[in-house]
């Protein structure tokens, strides 16, 4: 052993043997990332779980265990129940609107035409730029006095200046507005995901199905959909998770108002936990999101697995 080391090996550092062994180097390489995520996602997550069953506020930092009392209290609150319903309306409304826009947009962008690249670049804008900044632009467009939308309707003679809608001041319109802005932010993502899915279908598979006598519908639903489903579902679950847990659009556009009409779980958790400092109840409100997230993640895992087979 020593003899060959002298014969073949140039002088090695003390760490030489570690740097040669994938079995040691592998865990060593991956551990910083794992530790970072464990420390700043895993541990806080557990802490959130604990807060939700404690009496912790920033004024009285008590870790006293109170069982499910926090959950009982929040479910007893009218504001919370409105918030919960709002969250689902907001999520499903804006996702469906975004998906419809996304599907049609993808069909338009599927075939090449002059200027397609520029069109795609423009269409992607709502998703690319920071959502907070785009929301501020929408706020300006929904302005009670200088709304460009109202100006256009008035100029077209559709409505009269005296009964121009106060977009963010009316509870129903305000909900519509946050949904529209979220759908607007989301649909470019849906377009791109659909396009990615469709282009992942190999042309020879479609050709083979056509030769085998599969008609348009059969081709679509037995060949194309199963191939693009894993891609599209994984992408769309992303969109749903981010919509379901978001607070920035609501925070900036309506601040939850008018009268909690647009309050959603993320926003309410922020109001209670951060603004009012009632960490325990805030954590409980945020954790109500967890079962929904869990279901979404399970669905997503199934599709990731399927992709790998």
């Amino acid at each position, binding site marked *: *052993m020593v*003899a*060959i*080391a002298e*014969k*073949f*090996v*140039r002088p090695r550092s003390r760490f030489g043997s570690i740097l*040669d062994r994938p079995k040691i180097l592998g865990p060593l390489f991956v551990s910083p990332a794992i530790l970072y995520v464990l420390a700043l996602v895993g541990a806080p997550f557990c802490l959130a779980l604990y807060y939700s069953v404690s009496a912790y506020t920033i004024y009285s930092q008590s870790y006293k265990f109170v069982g499910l009392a926090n959950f009982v209290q929040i479910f007893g609150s009218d504001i919370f129940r409105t918030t919960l319903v709002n969250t689902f309306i907001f999520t499903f409304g804006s996702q469906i609107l975004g998906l419809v826009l996304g599907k049609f947009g993808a069909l338009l962008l599927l075939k090449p035409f002059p200027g397609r690249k520029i069109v795609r670049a423009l269409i992607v804008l709502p998703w690319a730029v920071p959502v907070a900044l785009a929301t501020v632009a929408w706020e300006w467009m929904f302005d009670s006095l200088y709304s460009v939308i109202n100006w256009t309707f008035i100029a077209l003679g559709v409505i009269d200046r005296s009964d121009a809608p106060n977009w963010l001041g009316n509870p129903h319109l305000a909900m519509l507005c946050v949904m529209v802005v979220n759908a607007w932010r989301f649909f470019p993502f849906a377009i791109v995901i659909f396009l990615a899915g469709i282009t992942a279908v190999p042309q020879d598979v479609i050709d083979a199905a056509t030769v085998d006598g599969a008609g348009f519908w059969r081709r679509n639903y037995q060949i194309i959909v199963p191939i693009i489903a894993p891609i599209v579902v994984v992408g769309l679950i992303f969109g749903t998770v981010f919509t379901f847990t978001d607070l920035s659009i609501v925070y900036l556009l309506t601040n939850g108002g008018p009268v909690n009409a647009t309050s959603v779980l993320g926003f309410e958790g922020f109001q209670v936990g951060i603004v009012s400092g009632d960490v325990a109840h805030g954590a409980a409100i945020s954790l109500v999101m967890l079962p929904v997230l869990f279901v979404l993640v399970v669905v997503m895992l199934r599709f990731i697995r399927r992709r790998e087979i």
Partner: protein
Amino acid sequence: MAAVQATDIVKQFEGVAAVNGISLAIPDGEFMVLLGPSGCGKTTFLRIICGLEKQTGGDIVIGGNVVNELPPRARGVAMMFQSYGLYPHYTVRKNIGFPLRTQRVASAEIKKKVGWAAELLGITHLLDRRPRQLSGGERQRVALARALVREPTVLLLDEPLSNLDAKLRASARNEIKAFQQRVGTTTIYVTHDQVEAMGMGDRIAVIDHGQIRQVGTPTAIYDDPADRFVATFVGTPPMNLVNWNGGHLGFRPENFLPKEMVESGDVTDFSFRVDRSEYLGSERIVYGTLEGLESATEITAKLPPAHVAFENIRPGEYHPYAVRNATLCYFDKDGKRANRH
């Protein structure tokens, strides 16, 4: 340059043995071919020799030193990969010089050696190109130059010709063989192609299911196979086998001839029913059936095409054929060879 000795090498992947007790001694300067079907463990064995895989059990000795615990770079071996593994971000010059640079060889010396290796393989004009600008044959030469430039103790080649087209493959075969004879480096060459194995190897180790079935010169492997696997794996068409006393009787298609072509004497006679014949230019392959044995057996015969007797072979006809007994191989019921020449 060095001799290589492997003793009882075992490699298990998740409980499955890819290499199952291989022992092989390769003397200094030999061109050893590891031949076997895909998935037989030959590549795994090669990777164990160079240190890319660690064996589960057994010893590798290179140049008299046990290298089990040494990383590949400390073993003094060079390897040429199936798709060459050229470094795409380096020029050919840097590719060839890389093994020297990692050993901190002085740059003047590197320049000299790269020039030497490039000239040897006729790729001097390619030195400033990048791998993706090269043809398949050129890439193969660059890979060979890179493997040779530091004058390795052992040269390992893993199916180096499988990415070349058929024509190029024949010339590359000659080149590698001629080259190895000139530099005399101990060479271990993995292939599933018996033509490469027969044409290039000083000796061939036939491997199947992680075990060596036979080691020998090409002549020994072909004429004197150790078992039924070797007999049928080497040779196209493969050796004919007919049931015989619970075991098998084997004979090569080119030894199975019309009776009048076999000099009389110590021969075994057969009645051969011709089913079909193929004219391949340099030979004629006749497919047919032997009857009157324990069961009817499909048999091929390989005949020189110009012989007058074959112009009138018709399907369905019976012809008297014979095999010289000296070329017959007997295999017992386990497939082991019962008689050795």
